[in-house]
C-alpha cells in the first residue's frame, strides 16, 4: 500500500525489510515506514511485520515509528533487503529525533509527574551534564543557576538565554530583592506541567547574535496535536520534611563561651546576672533555659499542586488551555508560596494560506517571606533571618516572656535582649543583641509586612502567510509584562534596637517596599523557504527581530514605625529614603539561517546575525556601521556527517546510527551595563538638601559585546541494536573583549567605567550514555549516566594586570591569568598555637591600622602560614585556597518498568568543587556573642592545649576568623534527587479514559563530606560568588503523591 510519490520525477528503487518488537521479538504491524526527512514516501508494515517501499535513489535512511514505540532510523544498504528493525516501547527514553540533530541540541520532555515549581529542577534532573545546574536553596520555586559550556563571562551575565515559544524572556538576572537570600525567578511563573519540551542549544548560537554566547534554552509550551478533545486533571499533595541542621552549643556550653568572650572585652565587671547560678538570683529562670530555637523556626511543610488541561481542535482552530494552582509551604515557618497560572495556546487556520497563532498566559505568584541565611554584616542592622537566629540565638534564653520572676509560656518575649548590657552598652554602634525569631515571625506576618507578589502576562500573536508550498512569511509579536512588588518589615516587638551605620543612628525597626515593572515588546518578522532538489535539500529562514525593554523600579526605605500595627512606609519615618532605577534598552537583530544537506549524509548549516543594541557604544569596536548605528556581526557554521547513511557503512554490525558533527560559532554577550556607553549626569544630594547634577558617568563609546568563539565536535551513536545510546560533545571556546570595570583616566574625574579588555578560554566536554539493560514484554530496565566537565582559564586581563580581586562576604575571590576565574584566595593555616612559647618562637605578627604597631599572635591564635617568611601576616601571605568549579558533574538515572508500574530514579552529582562555608565561618569565629557550633567547645582555653579551634576573642583583633583555608571545604556530593513510582490504571469508560497514580520522593539521600547542611546552593547567578554557602534554607526530603485523570 505505497503512497504515490510526490516527486514523480525521482528515480526510485524498492527496499524491503521486517520490523519486530524488541521486547517480544514478535512482528509489528502498522508501523509507519518512511523515507527520513522527506515527504511522500511511506508505507505501513504488514501483519507479519514486513514492508516494501519504493524510495528515491537518493534516499539514504528510513524512519520507523508507531504510537507505542520510540522512533528508529536506519541507514539504507544498497541491497533490497534491509536490516531487521526492532522497535523499543516508549517506556524507554528516545534515541532518535525526527530531524537530524546538526547542532547537537539536547532535549528533555515528559514533565507530567513534576511537582517542581519551576523547570530548572527538571533540567537539572534530566540534563545535568549539558547544563550545569545548581539549585539556589530549599525555598520553593527559587530557581537555579545554570551554566553552559563552562564560564562564559566574568562580570557580565553568564546565565543562558531563555526563549519561551520563540520569545526572549529577560530573566532579570541582575535585579536585587529586599529579602536577603531571596531571588525572583522569572521561570517560576511557568508551570512545568505546561511545558512540552526543553531544548538546550549549545552550538549554532550565532543565530541569537549578541545574546547567544551563554547558550540558549528553548522552552516550548504545550500545544494541541490531536483532533480529539482531551481533558487531563492532576492533583498532587506532599510533605517536605524539616531540614537537617548542624549542632550548636547547649545553654551551659554557651554560658562558658560567653563568659570566656566577656573576659576579652573592655569590661571590668566580674559578676553577670546570666552567669549567676545561685538560687537566690531573681533572674535565674530567665537565663536557665535550654531552648532549641530550631524547633520554633523549622517545620514539616505541606505542598499541593492542582492542574487541569483541556486540548482539542478542528479544521478551524486548535487550542490548549491549562489552569494550575500550586501552593508550597517552606520548611521555614511563615514562609511559602502559591501560584496560579493560566495559559491558552491556539492555532487558528483562517484560510488555507493564512494561519494565526495566538497565545496568552498569566501567572501570579505570592509569597510570605523572611530574610534567609547568614547576614553579610552586622553594621547596618541586626540579623533578622529566622533561619540564622535559630542557630545564633543563645539557648539559655526562652522564647517566652519573663516576668514576675518566671517564664510565661505562650507569651512571646518581645523585650530586647539585655544580658550583655552591663558589659557592652559602652561600645557605641555595636550590634550585639539578637532578635527573638518567634517575634520576627509573629509580628512580621501580614500581607503589608513581609510579602512578595509577581505577575507575568504574555500575549503573543503570530500571523503566518504561506505563499506556496515552500515560502512563508510570519510576524511574531509578543508583549510581556512582569510586575513585581515586595514588602519588607522588621517588627519592633522582639527585635532589639540596632545601630545602622548608613544613617548613623540607633533604629527600632525598618520598613522597605519595592515595586518593579518590566515591559517587553518583541517583533520577529521571518521569511522562510525550503525545497528539495533531488538529493539536495535546502532550508533557509531569515528575518528581523526587535526587542524593546523597559524596566522601572521604585523602592522606599524608612526606620522607626510607631508600632507593629503601622507597617506602612511614609515620609514621616526616620531617614526615609526613596530610590529607584529606570532602564530602557533596545535591540535589533537581522538573522539568517541556511541549511543544506546532501542525501541526509552531509549537512551544512550556516547562521549569521547582525545585531545592534542601545547598550553598545555608538562607536563600538569590531562593529559594522549601518544606518548610523554600530552592528555586531555574528556567524557560525555547523557540519554533520551521518556515517550510517553511507551505503558502505549501513551494513556494519553493531552500529545502528553514527553522526559526527563539527561546528564553529561566534556569538556575543550584550549584558552591558545599561548606560555605560553614554555620558550622563545624575542627581546627588548636596548637603542632603538640594539635588546637584553632576557627571555620573563618562561613556565608553567604544563599548561592545563580549565575543565568544566556540569550536565544537560531537558524536552521537546508537549501538547494539539500539541498546546503547552514546552522545559526546567536546568544545573549546575563547571569550574575547571581556567586560571589565576599569579605571577611567583621572582627567574624567570619575573612577571607573566598563570597557572590553581581557580574555579567557574554556575547554570541556559532556558525555551521556543510556543503556537498555532489560527489555522484555513486562519488564524494561534502562540505565543512564552523564558527565560534564570544563576547564576555564583566564588568558588576558586589562592594563597588564596579572590578577583582579573582589570581596564577597569576607572572601577574596581572585581572577588571575593562567587560572580559572573566581578562585578563593586567602590565608593558609597550620593549626593553633598551643603554648605561648610556640607562638613566641614563630614570632608572627600583624600590623595595626597605624601601619607601625606590631600585634603578635599569641597562644590560642591561629598559626597562619607566613608565605614570604617575613613574620608579618599580611595580604602577601595569601594564596589560592579553593576552586568553586567542579571537576565533573552530571546525572545518573535508572528507569524500571514492570507492566504498568514504573520506577524512575535520578541522582545528580558534583565532584571536586570547593566551598567557602560562610555560614560555618559565622558559627565558628568565636568573636561575637552568638551561639556557635559544638566544635567551638574544643576552643583553645588553657596554655598547652592542643586543638585546631582558636581561643575566643571579642571582635577578633588578630583576625583568627579571617578568610582562610579553615572555611574552605570539599563540596563534592552525590544526591538522590528524585525517586518516582507511578502506576497506570487501565480504564476505558465513557467518562474516564485513564488514571495514573504516582508518588515521588525528592532529595532522599546525599553523600558528601561537606560540613554544612546542603552542598548544593548558589548565592548568586554571577560567576563571582559561586561556591559561597550563605547558610540558606537547605533542600530537604519531600514526599509527594499524585493522581492524574484523563477524561
Amino acid at each position: 500500500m505505497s503512497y504515490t510519490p510526490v516527486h514523480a520525477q525521482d528515480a526510485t528503487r524498492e527496499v524491503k525489510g521486517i520490523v519486530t518488537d524488541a521486547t517480544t521479538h514478535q512482528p509489528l504491524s502498522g508501523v509507519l515506514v518512511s523515507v527520513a526527512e522527506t515527504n511522500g514516501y511511506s508505507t505501513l508494515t504488514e501483519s507479519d511485520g514486513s514492508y516494501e517501499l519504493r524510495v528515491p535513489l537518493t534516499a539514504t535512511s528510513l524512519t520507523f515509528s508507531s504510537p507505542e514505540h520510540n522512533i528508529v532510523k536506519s541507514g539504507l544498504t544498497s541491497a533490497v533487503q534491509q536490516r531487521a528493525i526492532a522497535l523499543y516501547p516508549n517506556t524507554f527514553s528516545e534515541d532518535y529525533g525526527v530531524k537530524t540533530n546538526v547542532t547537537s541540541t539536547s532535549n528533555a520532555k515528559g514533565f507530567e509527574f513534576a511537582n517542581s515549581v519551576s523547570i530548572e529542577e527538571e533540567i537539572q534532573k534530566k540534563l545535568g551534564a549539558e547544563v550545569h545546574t545548581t539549585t539556589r536553596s530549599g525555598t520553593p520555586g527559587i530557581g537555579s543557576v545554570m551554566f553552559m559550556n563552562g564560564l562564559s563571562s566574568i562580570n557580565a551575565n553568564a546565565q543562558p538565554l531563555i526563549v519561551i515559544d520563540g520569545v526572549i524572556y529577560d530573566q532579570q538576572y541582575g535585579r536585587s530583592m529586599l529579602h536577603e537570600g531571596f531571588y525572583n525567578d522569572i521561570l517560576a511563573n511557568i508551570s512545568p506541567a505546561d511545558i512540552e519540551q526543553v531544548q538546550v542549544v549549545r552550538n549554532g548560537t550565532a543565530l541569537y547574535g549578541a545574546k547567544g554566547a551563554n547558550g540558549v534554552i528553548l522552552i516550548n509550551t504545550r500545544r494541541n496535536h490531536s483532533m480529539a478533545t482531551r481533558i487531563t486533571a492532576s492533583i498532587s499533595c506532599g510533605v517536605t520534611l524539616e531540614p537537617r541542621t548542624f549542632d550548636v552549643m547547649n545553654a551551659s556550653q554557651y554560658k562558658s563561651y560567653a563568659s570566656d568572650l566577656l573576659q576579652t572585652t573592655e569590661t571590668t565587671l566580674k559578676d553577670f546576672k546570666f552567669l549567676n547560678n545561685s538560687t537566690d538570683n531573681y533572674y535565674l529562670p530567665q537565663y536557665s533555659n535550654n531552648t532549641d530555637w530550631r524547633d520554633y523556626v523549622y517545620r514539616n511543610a505541606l505542598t499541593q499542586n492542582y492542574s487541569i488541561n483541556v486540548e482539542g481542535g478542528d479544521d478551524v482552530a486548535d487550542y490548549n488551555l491549562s489552569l494550575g494552582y500550586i501552593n508550597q509551604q517552606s520548611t521555614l515557618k511563615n514562609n511559602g508560596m502559591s501560584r496560579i497560572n493560566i495559559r491558552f495556546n491556539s492555532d487558528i487556520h483562517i484560510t488555507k494560506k493564512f494561519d494565526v497563532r495566538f497565545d496568552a498566559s498569566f501567572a501570579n505568584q505570592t509569597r510570605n517571606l523572611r530574610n534567609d541565611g547568614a547576614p553579610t554584616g552586622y553594621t547596618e542592622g541586626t540579623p533578622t533571618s529566622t533561619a540564622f537566629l535559630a542557630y545564633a540565638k543563645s539557648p539559655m534564653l526562652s522564647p517566652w516572656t519573663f516576668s514576675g520572676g518566671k517564664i510565661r509560656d505562650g507569651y512571646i518575649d518581645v523585650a530586647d535582649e539585655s544580658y550583655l548590657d552591663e558589659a557592652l552598652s559602652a561600645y557605641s554602634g555595636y550590634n550585639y543583641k539578637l532578635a527573638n525569631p518567634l517575634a520576627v515571625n509573629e509580628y512580621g506576618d501580614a500581607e503589608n509586612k513581609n510579602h512578595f507578589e509577581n505577575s507575568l502576562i504574555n500575549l503573543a500573536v503570530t500571523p503566518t502567510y504561506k505563499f506556496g508550498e515552500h515560502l512563508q512569511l510570519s510576524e511574531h509579536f509578543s508583549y510581556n509584562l512582569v510586575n513585581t512588588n515586595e514588602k519588607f518589615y522588621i517588627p519592633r516587638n522582639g527585635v532589639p534596637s540596632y545601630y545602622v551605620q548608613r544613617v548613623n543612628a540607633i533604629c527600632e525597626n525598618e520598613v522597605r517596599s519595592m515595586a518593579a515593572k518590566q515591559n517587553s515588546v518583541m517583533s520577529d518578522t521571518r521569511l522562510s523557504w525550503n525545497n528539495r532538489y533531488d538529493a539536495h535539500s535546502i532550508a533557509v529562514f531569515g528575518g528581523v527581530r526587535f526587542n524593546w525593554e523597559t524596566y522601572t523600579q521604585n523602592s522606599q526605605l524608612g526606620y522607626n514605625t510607631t508600632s507593629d500595627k503601622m507597617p506602612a512606609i511614609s515620609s514621616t519615618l526616620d531617614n526615609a529614603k526613596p530610590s529607584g532605577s529606570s532602564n530602557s534598552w533596545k535591540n535589533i537583530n537581522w538573522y539568517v539561517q541556511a541549511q543544506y544537506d546532501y542525501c541526509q549524509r552531509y549537512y551544512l548549516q550556516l547562521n549569521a546575525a547582525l545585531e545592534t543594541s542601545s547598550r553598545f557604544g555608538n562607536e563600538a569596536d569590531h562593529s559594522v556601521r549601518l544606518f548610523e548605528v554600530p552592528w555586531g556581526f555574528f556567524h557560525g557554521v555547523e557540519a554533520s556527517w551521518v556515517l550510517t547513511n553511507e551505503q558502505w557503512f549501513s551494513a556494519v554490525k553493531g552500529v545502528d546510527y553514527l553522526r559526527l558533527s563539527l561546528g564553529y560559532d561566534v556569538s556575543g554577550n550584550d549584558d552591558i551595563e545599561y548606560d555605560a556607553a553614554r555620558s550622563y549626569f545624575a542627581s546627588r544630594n548636596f548637603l542632603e538638601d538640594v539635588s546637584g547634577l553632576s557627571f555620573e558617568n563618562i561613556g565608553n563609546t567604544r563599548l561592545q559585546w563580549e565575543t565568544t568563539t566556540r569550536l565544537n565536535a560531537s558524536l552521537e551513536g546508537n549501538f547494539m541494536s539500539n541498546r546503547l545510546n552514546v552522545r559526546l560533545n567536546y568544545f573549546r571556546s575563547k571569550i574575547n573583549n571581556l567586560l571589565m570595570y576599569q579605571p577611567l583616566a583621572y582627567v574624567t574625574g570619575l573612577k571607573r567605567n566598563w570597557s572590553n579588555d581581557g580574555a579567557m578560554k574554556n575547554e570541556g566536554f559532556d558525555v551521556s550514555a543510556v543503556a537498555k539493560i532489560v527489555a522484555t514484554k513486562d519488564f524494561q530496565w534502562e540505565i543512564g549516566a552523564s558527565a560534564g566537565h570544563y576547564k576555564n582559564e583566564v588568558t588576558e586581563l586589562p592594563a597588564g594586570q596579572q590578577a583582579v580581586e573582589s570581596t564577597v562576604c569576607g572572601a577574596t575571590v581572585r581572577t588571575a591569568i593562567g587560572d580559572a576565574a573566581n578562585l578563593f584566595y586567602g590565608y593558609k593555616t597550620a593549626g593553633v598555637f598551643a603554648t605561648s612559647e610556640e607562638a613566641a618562637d614563630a614570632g608572627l605578627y600583624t600590623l595595626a591600622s597605624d601601619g607601625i604597631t606590631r600585634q603578635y599572635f599569641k597562644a590560642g591564635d591561629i598559626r597562619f602560614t607566613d608565605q614570604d617568611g617575613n613574620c608579618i601576616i599580611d595580604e602577601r601571605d595569601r594564596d589560592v585556597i579553593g576552586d568553586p568549579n567542579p571537576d565533573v558533574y552530571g546525572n545518573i538515572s535508572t528507569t524500571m518498568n514492570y507492566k504498568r508500574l514504573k520506577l524512575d530514579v535520578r541522582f545528580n552529582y558534583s565532584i571536586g568543587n570547593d566551598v567557602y562555608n560562610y555560614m560555618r565561618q559565622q558559627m565558628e569565629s568565636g568573636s561575637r556573642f552568638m551561639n556557635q557550633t559544638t566544635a567551638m567547645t574544643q576552643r583553645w582555653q588553657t596554655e598547652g592545649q592542643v586543638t585546631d579551634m582558636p581561643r575566643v576573642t571579642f571582635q577578633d583583633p588578630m583576625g583568627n576568623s579571617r578568610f582562610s583555608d579553615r572555611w574552605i571545604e570539599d563540596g563534592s556530593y552525590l544526591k538522590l534527587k528524585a525517586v518516582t513510582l507511578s502506576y497506570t490504571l487501565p480504564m476505558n469508560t465513557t467518562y474516564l479514559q485513564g488514571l495514573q497514580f504516582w508518588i515521588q520522593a525528592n532529595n532522599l539521600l546525599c553523600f558528601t563530606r561537606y560540613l554544612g547542611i546542603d552542598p548544593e546552593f548558589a548565592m548568586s547567578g554571577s560567576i563571582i560568588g559561586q561556591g559561597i554557602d550563605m547558610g540558606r534554607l537547605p533542600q530537604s526530603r519531600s514526599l509527594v503523591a499524585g493522581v492524574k485523570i484523563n477524561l
Partner: protein
Amino acid sequence: MTHKISKIAKELTGLLIVICSLLFSVACSDFLYDDSDIVTYADREHLVSDADTLWSVAGIMNKMQALADRTILLGELRGDLVSITDNADADIREVASFSIATGNRYNNPADYYAVINNCNYFIAHADTALENNRNESIFMKEYAAVKAFRAWTYLQLALNYGKVPFITEPIVSKEQSEQEFPMYGINDICRFFIADLAPYADIEQPGYATIRNTDSSLFYFPIYILMGDMNLWAGNYRAAAENYYKFITMRNGRNSSFPISTNSVRFMSNDSHWTATADTWSVNAFQTETRSAYGELITMIPGDSIPSEGNYSELRDLFNTTERNEYKESIRPSEALYSLSALQRYCHYTSGGEYVFSPDGLDGHRSGDLRLQAVYNESNNMAISVNGKRIENYVTNGKYQTRNIHLYRRAMVYLRMAEALNRAGFPRFAFQILKRGVNNSVIETEVVPYYESDAAWLRTFSFPDNRYVLETTAGAASENTIGLHSRGCGYTAANSTYTMPDSEQLTGQQLLDYQIQKVEDMIMDEEALEFAFEGHRFYDLMRVALHRGNPAYLADHVARRSGTVDASLQQKLLTTGSWYMTLPE
C-alpha cells in the same frame, strides 16, 4: 528550476525592500538612543532653564566637597607648624613625610578633575545669553561662579602636582579622556585664568540663601581674591596687590569698607598675673559661619553631618580627641610653632596706662603670641570613661569644631596683599599692615614719603580714615583697624621691638632688597601665627621659596619643624620635584 529560483528571489527581494523601508524610515540612532527618566545624558541639552542653575552649581559644589579635607591636610602636614602623633594613619604619615604613594586617599587627582570636568561642561553649555522675563541673565552669575571654581581647582592641582593636564573643554567620552593634553605648570595656569576670570570679576555671586542651615553665600570664591592669588604666584605683584585691594573695597559694595577689625586675643587689662585672656578673635574667625559685612570668613566648603552622607570632614577627628577617634588625635602643633609663638613679644597696655611686655615662661603657652593657646588646648588629666577605658588625654583645636572647611578669610587677603606690596617694592606699606593697620593717613605718613616716584599708584589704595579707624587705647566702638600682629601680640603699634627693618650699612636698592626680605620673613611669621592648622603653610613656604629662587627656604623650615633638623628630609626637599605628588600614568 532556475526560473523558479529567480522568481522566488524576486519575491524575496521585494519583500525585504518593503520591510527595510518600513523599519528604517526613522533613523536607527533615534530609535536606539532615547532619553531616560532617571539620568540626564550629556548629549542632550539640560542647561536651558532657571531650574538648571542651582542643580548644576550644586552638583559642582558637591564635587568640591571631596577636595575640602585634603586642601587643608596637604597644605598643613607638609609645612612646619604641625607634627603628627603616633595615632596618625599611614596616609597621613605619608603626606607629612613627603612620600605620598599612589593609593593614598589624599592623592587622587580625579577628584580635582571631577570639579573641572563638570565646570567645563557647564561653561561650554550654559547659555549666558538666555534671559528671563525680567531681562536678567539666567546663567551669568552661575557662569562666573563656575569659572571661579574651576580656576581655584586648577590652582590647587598645580600646587600639588606641579605640571598637570590642562583641559578646558568637557570630556564626554572615554576616548576623549585618553588623548594627550598639554601640561600646564603654575605659571601657565595663572596666566590662563587671570585672563579667563578678568571679565567676570564684578559679577555678583549667586544667591541661594541657606542650604541645610548653612549660609550658601560662603560657598563661592571671589574672583578678585583668585586673581590676586594667581598674580601673586605668577609674580605680578602690583596686579596682585590691586586685586586684593579691589576685593577689600568691593566686598561690601560701593562706598563701603572691609577693615581688618579689632578682633584679637589679649590679656585682660586689669589682670596682673598674666592668666586671664579675652578672645574675640577665634570666635569671630572660626566659629561664625554666616556672612556679615565685617565677618572674617569669606569662603568655605561645607561638609555633611555624618559620614554616611558622603562628604563628612574628617578634620575634626584628626585635630581633636573625639569619640569617633577613640580620643586619639593625629595632628598636634609642632615644636617649631610653639617656639615661634613663644618668640613673639606681647605688648600689654596696663590699666595703669603703661606699655609692658609679657614675661617669658608663663604657663599654658601664654608667653609670646596668644593665638596658639587660644585655639589649641591640651589636657592630660581628664577622666572620661569610654568603652570601659579611661580617657585622660583630651585635645581641642578651636579651628576645627564645625563640619565646614574654611578656605579664605579676611586676614588672608590682607596678609597676601602685604606680601604682594612688599614684593612690589613697598615693604613699608606691607609692614604697616602688620603693625598698625592701614588707612589713608598711615599711607600718607608712613608709606608715600618713602616711595615718592610711585606715589600716584600708592594713592590708588584708598582706605578712608573715617571708615578705617585705627585702634587707640580708648577702645572706642568705631575703632576697626589694627595691625595683624596685634591680633595675638597686644598693642603692636606701641611695641618698640616690632619695627620696620632697617640697616645703616645699606642704601638704595640694596636697602630695599634687605627690607623686602626681612618684611617677607615677618609676613611669613605672621601667616604662621594667624593661620596655623588652616592649611596655608606649605603653599606659603613654597611661594616664597619660588619667589626667592631658593628651595632651601622651604627645606630648612620643614626640616626643622620638630625643633631639630631632619637632615634627610632637608636634603630631599632641596629638589623642588619632591614638593609635588606624582600623577598616575
